[in-house]
């Protein structure tokens, strides 16, 4: 290789990259699509006509730790400092597993409780968290990232809204109930099987169609697949394959059409990481793919039903432990990829991500990054500013082609859920993880402060946010009091009714609402699920 000859390069996902792109690289792409307009199907150039001039992206940060009061205080802090929606993170020990605080597996790790999410186990706790927060006018993700947790969180949040006299049909927010988190990236010790998870999600989708038209009942989070190892086009293809499972499950019930179901499934979540252009291409391609999926597979003609809405989240795994202030720059770059890709909603990981959940200061920095991008740097003036770039259009088309191929591979293996049950999806993530770490180990991939540029003139120590230390003890006091002073017969009857609903084929949500209104706890609901649905057989060992 001469000094003037560029070396061979690919994107993170392995797409070969030329040193420069020209007209010949977009010659094969449908000119009408490239020349399309935002807000017009197939939405390559943006979900809405005016993009950020008319709809600024939502500043939407994850938060949660400690007691319900701590969680409420942090949400109010974020809203006061410029957040425009809030996301509640729940304690993994109890929420993801549907365990009460006195479950042996939780007691054995009681100091962990409340560290990475708030301890919220009843509708009473929801009331405490939400005290002083105007939920009638703030967009909320009240938790339930994990599939089996979602019906409980939704029921609690909606019950609190009802208690305040807010009509459910006016309430807006979202929920994840994400298969990528639950069955790919963060596999719990115990979880309902995938088919039961699908049934629960189909129930919430139907319930929202009938009672909460502004609620987004599921949010497929490719993010969680990507941060486990799926590359850009695998993430994209798998998200589409997941959506097919949801839409098919609800349509099969015969009460709603694909066009009715699609908008509730079309609020998705993608990761942006440290391959700037590939991530922009991925977001652009995703909108076009969604439109085509709806048009071709489901014969949906209404352009509005073909619109994909994106929440993008910066890669937690890209945030380094070493020289943590560098993560402010990484957060900015990854967020910028989301903005240039046309995201509707954005979360920026804390600079202390590799050390702890965000401190108040780290959260404030995430907000400031978003605010600098949104209001200071003139990024929002023109929609899809990279549209028409030879490189971006060529890369978008290539990511889309590969994503459809991956989608077809999944279909040929029986579909998305079959690929989770068999471990095929995990194997794809795993092989990429190993490759990524090998590249970092060999230096083929640079990570500043980690495998290169390790010198640190003035060490900025981040000790990590410790949060509270009494979340288990205080939670146990609340749990004991609740069991003593709730209406025991009502709790028992509603639990039995929930069990009957789960065992039958009626929608579980009405019975879930009754149960949480009767102060049935997250662990008791878990007991019902475990008894009726059993456990998922985890296809991998870790």
């Amino acid at each position: 290789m001469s000094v003037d000859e560029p070396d061979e390069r690919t994107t993170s996902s392995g797409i070969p990259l030329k040193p420069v792109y020209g007209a010949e690289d977009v010659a094969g792409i449908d000119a009408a699509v490239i020349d399309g307009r935002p807000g017009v199907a197939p939405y390559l150039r943006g979900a809405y006509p005016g993009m950020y001039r008319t709809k600024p992206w939502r500043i939407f940060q994850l938060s949660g730790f400690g007691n319900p009061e701590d969680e409420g205080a942090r949400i109010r802090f974020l809203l006061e400092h410029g957040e425009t929606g809030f996301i509640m993170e729940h304690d993994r020990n109890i929420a993801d597993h549907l365990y009460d605080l006195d479950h042996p597996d939780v007691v054995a790790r009681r100091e962990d409780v409340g560290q990475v999410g708030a301890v919220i186990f009843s509708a009473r706790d929801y009331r405490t968290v939400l005290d002083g927060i105007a939920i009638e006018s703030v967009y909320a993700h009240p938790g339930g990232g994990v599939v089996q947790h979602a019906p409980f969180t939704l029921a609690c949040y909606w019950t609190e809204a009802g208690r305040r006299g807010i009509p459910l049909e006016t309430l807006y927010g979202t929920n994840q109930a994400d298969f990528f988190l639950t069955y790919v990236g963060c596999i719990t010790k115990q979880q309902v099987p995938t088919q039961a998870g699908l049934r629960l999600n189909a129930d919430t989708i139907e319930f929202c169609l009938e009672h909460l038209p502004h609620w987004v009942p599921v949010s497929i989070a490719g993010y969680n697949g990507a941060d486990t190892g799926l590359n850009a086009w695998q993430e994209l293809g798998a998200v589409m394959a997941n959506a097919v499972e949801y839409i098919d499950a609800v349509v099969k019930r015969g009460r709603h059409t694909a066009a009715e179901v699609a908008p509730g499934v079309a609020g998705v979540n993608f990761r942006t990481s440290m391959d700037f252009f590939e991530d922009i291409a991925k977001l652009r391609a995703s909108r076009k793919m969604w439109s085509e999926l709806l048009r071709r597979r489901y014969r949906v003609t209404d352009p509005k039903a073909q619109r994909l809405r994106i929440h993008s989240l910066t890669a937690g795994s890209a945030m380094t432990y070493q020289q943590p202030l560098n993560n402010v720059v990484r957060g900015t770059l990854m967020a910028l990829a989301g903005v240039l890709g046309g995201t509707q909603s954005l979360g920026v990981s804390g600079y202390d991500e590799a050390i702890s959940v965000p401190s108040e200061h780290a959260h404030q920095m995430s907000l400031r990054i978003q605010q600098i991008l949104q209001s200071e740097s003139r990024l929002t003036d023109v929609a899809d500013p990279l549209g028409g770039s030879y490189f971006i259009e060529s890369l978008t088309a290539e990511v889309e082609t590969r994503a459809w191929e991956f989608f077809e591979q999944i279909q040929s293996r029986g579909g998305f859920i079959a690929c989770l049950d068999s471990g095929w999806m995990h194997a794809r993530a795993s092989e990429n993880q190993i490759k990524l770490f090998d590249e970092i180990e060999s230096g083929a991939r640079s990570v500043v402060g980690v495998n290169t540029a390790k010198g640190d003139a003035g060490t900025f120590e981040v000790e990590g946010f410790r949060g509270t230390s009494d979340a288990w003890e205080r939670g146990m006091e609340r749990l004991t009091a609740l069991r003593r002073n709730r209406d025991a017969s009502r709790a028992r009857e509603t639990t039995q009714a929930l069990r009957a609903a789960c065992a039958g084929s009626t929608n579980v949500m009405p019975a879930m609402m009754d149960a949480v209104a009767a102060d049935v706890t997250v662990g008791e609901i878990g007991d019902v699920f475990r008894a009726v649905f059993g456990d998922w057989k985890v296809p991998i060992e870790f």
Partner: protein
Amino acid sequence: MPNRRARVLLAKTGLDGHWRGLSVVAHALRDAGFEVVLAGMARPDEIVAAVEQEDVDLVGLNVGGRIEVVERIIESLRATAPAMPIFAGGTLPPAAIRRLRELGVDGFPPGSSLASIVEAARRLTAAAVED
């Protein structure tokens, strides 16, 4: 040359099921010739039982939560298998790394090289495999 392959038990101390880091470390150790036994999200008593049953030479703890939980596991292990070497990795804030050091346990935070983890595993099992 070691007489036999060293056996390493890897366990997650918390109920946080993010498995990517543990999986990569397990792969690196196997690549380096170790036998790896995976214990999953195990409670202290389950880790102690696994150590007894599996006849391992080293315990690796994958930490996603508080150091107090890790300390409880270390105490339990030292009570039942006092000579068992232990190392730990994961989301370990600086204070947790310092505490582990006081307890004589190497801590590997995010960004640690796989080579350094393998090297530590070799060092900690050297005596056992050359018996």
